[in-house]
């Protein structure tokens, strides 16, 4: 096989993968319109993805808020503007760091979980068995996970934002002796409606990306247990990269739309 035909083959596979991913994503949304709807499965996934991710989101959110204050306070103090610490922690957490870090945590925890669970089902023919019994796996397996992740990620992001602010306040209080009134007045006052819109719109998209990518890699698993491991890794890497790349474009779009 020549280099050109090899390149062409690789490109074809990539295009096919994008096409299949797009079709799977579209079907997962289209399934919302018809029957059957797997409400119990959706609730179970909400519990696994939402409640299950809560401890890690709280822990990480707290320390991210805390370290933000550590990093920025020294700079602001040099200019005699220590009170601005509340502004910067609130704005960066709500607009950017909260949604992105929460999405990355959920990608690491749940995109991998989804991909390995569905991948194991594929290699043990459980998905084929499901299809053979007249069940649509995109309805039974994909849509509940997409709905659960897309609805839970915004809630997890709100928790991460709040806990991050608490972490930031504690460090500000003990390290730079900022009073609670100073910190919280500045932090809350700095936030405008458009910041909240930005911070809450992104998690919906990130949730969709994380879950649909996890499902795609899970359902396209080939090659036994080794294939499951490969799918799991690819799901985490791809969903994390897509979260970061799409974040740029969504931010650009939201800034433009909110300015309008």
């Amino acid at each position, binding site marked *: 096989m020549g280099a050109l035909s090899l390149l062409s083959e690789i490109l074809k596979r990539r295009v096919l993968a994008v096409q299949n991913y797009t079709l799977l994503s579209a079907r997962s949304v289209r399934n919302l319109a018809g029957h059957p709807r797997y409400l119990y499965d959706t609730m179970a996934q909400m519990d696994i993805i939402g409640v299950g991710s809560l401890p890690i989101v709280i822990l990480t959110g707290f320390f991210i808020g805390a370290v933000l204050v550590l990093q920025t306070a020294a700079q602001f103090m040099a200019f005699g503007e220590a009170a601005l610490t509340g502004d910067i922690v609130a704005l960066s957490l709500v607009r950017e760091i909260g949604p992105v870090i929460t999405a990355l945590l959920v990608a690491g925890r749940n995109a991998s979980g989804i991909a390995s669970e569905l991948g194991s089902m594929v290699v043990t*023919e*459980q998905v084929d*068995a*499901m*299809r*053979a*019994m*007249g*069940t649509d796996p995109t309805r039974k397996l994909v849509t509940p996970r997409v709905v659960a992740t897309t609805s839970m990620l915004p809630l997890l992001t709100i928790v991460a934002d709040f806990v991050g602010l608490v972490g930031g306040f504690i460090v500000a209080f003990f390290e730079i002796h900022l009073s609670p009134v100073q910190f919280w007045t500045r932090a809350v006052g700095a936030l405008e409606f458009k910041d909240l819109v930005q911070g809450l719109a992104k998690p919906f998209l990130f949730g969709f990306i994380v879950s649909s990518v996890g499902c795609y890699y899970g359902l396209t698993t080939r090659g036994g247990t080794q294939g499951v491991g490969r799918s799991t890794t690819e799901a985490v890497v791809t969903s994390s990269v897509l979260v970061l790349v799409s974040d740029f474009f969504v931010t650009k779009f939201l800034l433009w739309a909110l300015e309008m």
Partner: protein
Amino acid sequence: MGAGNVSGRGAAAGYAICFENVSLAFEGKPVLREITFAVPEGETLVLLGESGAGKTVLLKLALGLLRPDAGRISILGREITGLAEEELFEIRKKIGMVFQEGALFDSLSVAENVAYRLQEEGVPAEELVARVRQALCFVEMEGAMVKLPAELSGGMRRRVAIARALISKPPILFYDSPTAGLDPVTSETILSLVLRLRDLEGATSVLVTQRLQDGFAVANYYFDREANRLRRATGPTNGAGGRHDTRTIFMMLRDGEIFFEGAPEEMARRGDPYLEQFLR
């Protein structure tokens, strides 16, 4: 039944399963080539061949889990080749499939696995429980209702898979190597279930196996409803003589093509060196 008997668009009528010139390749490598056969309703097809001959692929094509590159497939008189995935679900409800390793849902209990199809169909809870119990009694697994598949032996998993396949009383049953990797006693139990299902429910069956003795067991034994036990179908094969007609045909695949198709005794008579390897 047979390659010569199947041609034209109306050929599928009266057959439970009909393949016409079906070919399939994976990444350019042919897996099945120009496969043509038909299974009349109520008949049993024993599909033989070594590993990689295309037996499981053929079953998956019949279920619509894979799509052929060329040719037509009909199930119960309806062509499935061009159907969308959503349309195939209705066809699949008429087929019970026992996968090679059982393919039980590992997060569901035995009872939930068996009940799965009925739950999907919205069968009321009371009826569902009764039918699950009945199906598990049939395979003598009623004591394992709350167990998870991981707690079962290989033979028990196959029995549960059979119960799951028969719960909705489908007119067609596929068995993908149901005795593979099992000891002789457990294999006999599984085969007796296959025979009971065939002879009590009258289901059209396709049994995929590498073991010729499984094929001969299906061809040479039948379940006597009145005596409630298996009996040997002895005597001449004229149907009117002493032999009970088990309506079983053998088909052997080799390198993706039909190598042999005919009655079990014909296979023994042919004296082909390749077939002899299986007969030894």
